[in-house]
């Protein structure tokens, strides 16, 4: 709910660093810079480093704006404008390869900054966003000049927000997304250290970045005097800091998702229950929809490995956000997006439990659905997973779908289809209203049905809807 006091308030997630705030005004994104931060920003812009890092795709395009040209509250010494990220996503929604790409982007930027006597004040994964499948660093005020011999203040944050989540998947085959979403700040060093076996203690990398900091943290009160004395005399040489970052880069580069049996969804595209001609008919329907609507931002619900997201992009869509509940499948989709250079960002999102608004005042991180206005929706071979698999009533399900975007294509999979038959094999059929007739009737009350086409011998049907004005 909009609060009138917040009409011109800063973005709810930008309160931590007092040196500036983010304001979203219309389609434009502004950042205020306080007097404390102005020297660092001037150093970055005047030296040409900012332009260089933007050209390399590491930093979000940024340019200074006349302070009086835009009305933002507060005492800002300067104002800059950033390129808008088409869809803000959070690390707990990223598949493994996306979190890995974000970690490497962060390290790469830090190393390049050190080469020109700059550094990063923190290592928050939330400071990385994606344009398609390409990561980019968005927090200008995290960049400042390096002070000779200083410690890497963001080390623990980097480990907890990038490294321990990746290692949870790599070493134990457990997707980090739920844990990360609950904790918001990543997976705590000490929690992760407790999972490691004695054999894993022998890894010098785990010892250096996780076990030793976790152990010293818990003993910090006892070691206080000795630590004070040590740190007063000892600085961290720049070469050692570069060595830490380079070592982490090499380690993370070779991390793969590792253990965990492949889920059925990865092979779903090859094993679905209808034939080649039927697939061709379905693809032609979706391609025609995209070519006529030419949406800027598409939501692909249940995107699987991204077959139809790729088709949407080929047929006229500008960018696709994929929502896929299975982390392994979303990871395959992400790697496909990278390999094919697609403007496609598949995220780990369960439609029956999408990311909520949470964090400070329950507004720091916004819920998945209200984060952007999607221009079009595709939900192909998906509704039965919610209706039958998760017992969501058909009317609620369709209201939610139609609310997501003004136009879209939804596939209805009837009970006669082998997939639904399998889902019902071991349970009682309590879904008395789950039929094509009631689907069409409910959808018809919410939207105009522009086109309807049966695409399989089992009775799968595609519905092209256009939301009625004023509905939802």
């Amino acid at each position, binding site marked *: 709910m909009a609060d009138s006091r917040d009409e011109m308030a800063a973005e709810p997630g930008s309160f*931590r*660093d*007092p*040196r500036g705030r983010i304001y979203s005004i219309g389609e434009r994104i502004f950042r205020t810079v306080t007097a*404390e*931060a102005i020297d660092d920003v001037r150093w970055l812009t005047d030296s040409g480093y900012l332009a260089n890092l933007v050209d390399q795709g590491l930093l979000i395009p940024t340019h200074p704006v006349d302070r009086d040209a835009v009305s933002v509250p507060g005492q800002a010494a300067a104002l800059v404008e950033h390129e808008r990220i088409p869809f803000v996503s959070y690390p707990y929604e990223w598949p493994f390869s996306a979190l890995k790409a974000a970690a490497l982007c962060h390290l790469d930027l830090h190393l390049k900054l050190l080469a020109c006597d700059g550094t990063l*004040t*923190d290592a928050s994964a939330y400071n990385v966003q994606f344009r398609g499948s390409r990561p980019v660093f968005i927090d200008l005020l995290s960049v*400042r000049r390096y*002070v000779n*011999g*200083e*410690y*890497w*203040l*963001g*080390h*623990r*944050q980097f*480990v907890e927000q990038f490294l321990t989540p990746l290692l949870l998947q790599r070493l134990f085959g457990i997707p980090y997304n739920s844990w990360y979403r609950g904790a918001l700040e990543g997976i705590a*060093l000490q929690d992760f250290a407790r999972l490691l076996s004695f054999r894993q203690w022998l890894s010098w990398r785990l010892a*250096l970045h996780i076990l*030793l*900091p*976790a*152990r*010293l*943290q*818990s003993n*910090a009160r006892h*070691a*206080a005097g000795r*630590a*004070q004395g*040590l*740190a*007063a005399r*000892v*600085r*961290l*040489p720049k*070469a*050692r800091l570069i060595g*830490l970052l380079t070592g982490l880069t090499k380690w993370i580069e070779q991390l793969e998702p590792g253990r965990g049996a492949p889920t059925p969804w990865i092979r779903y595209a090859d094993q679905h229950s209808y034939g080649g001609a039927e697939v061709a008919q379905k693809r032609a329907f979706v391609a025609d929809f995209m070519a006529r609507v030419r949406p800027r931002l598409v939501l692909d619900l249940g995107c699987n490995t991204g077959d139809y997201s790729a088709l949407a992009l080929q047929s006229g869509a500008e960018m696709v956000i994929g929502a896929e509940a299975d982390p392994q499948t979303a990871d395959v989709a992400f790697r496909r997006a990278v390999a094919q250079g697609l403007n496609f960002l598949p995220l780990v999102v369960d439609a029956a439990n999408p990311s909520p608004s949470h964090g400070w005042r329950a507004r720091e991180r916004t819920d998945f659905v209200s984060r952007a206005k999607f221009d079009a929706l595709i939900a192909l071979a998906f509704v039965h997973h919610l209706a039958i698999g998760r017992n969501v009533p058909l009317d609620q399900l369709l209201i939610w779908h139609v609310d997501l975007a003004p136009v879209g294509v939804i596939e209805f999979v009837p009970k006669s289809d082998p997939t639904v038959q399998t889902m019902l094999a071991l349970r009682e059929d309590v879904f008395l209203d789950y039929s094509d007739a009631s689907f069409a009737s409910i959808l018809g009350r919410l939207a105009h049905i522009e086109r309807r086409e049966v695409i399989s011998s089992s009775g799968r049907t595609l519905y092209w809807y256009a939301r009625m004005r004023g509905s939802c």
Partner: protein
Amino acid sequence: MHVLAFFLLLTGPAHAYLDPGTGSILVQAILGAVSLGVAFFRERLARLLSFTNWRRGKSDEVARTKNGG
């Protein structure tokens, strides 16, 4: 808490909004100390080597002088 406050002071108040974690900072202090130790040892070793080289150089010179004379 004293340690934490100390480290925050050490790194300057302008960007002290992030708690760096005492354990993580201590590990870096150890790395710094190791670097310092290695540098010290290297310097001593270099001095020792240059000293022996100097001695050897000196004795070679003496031998050459004797042979030449």
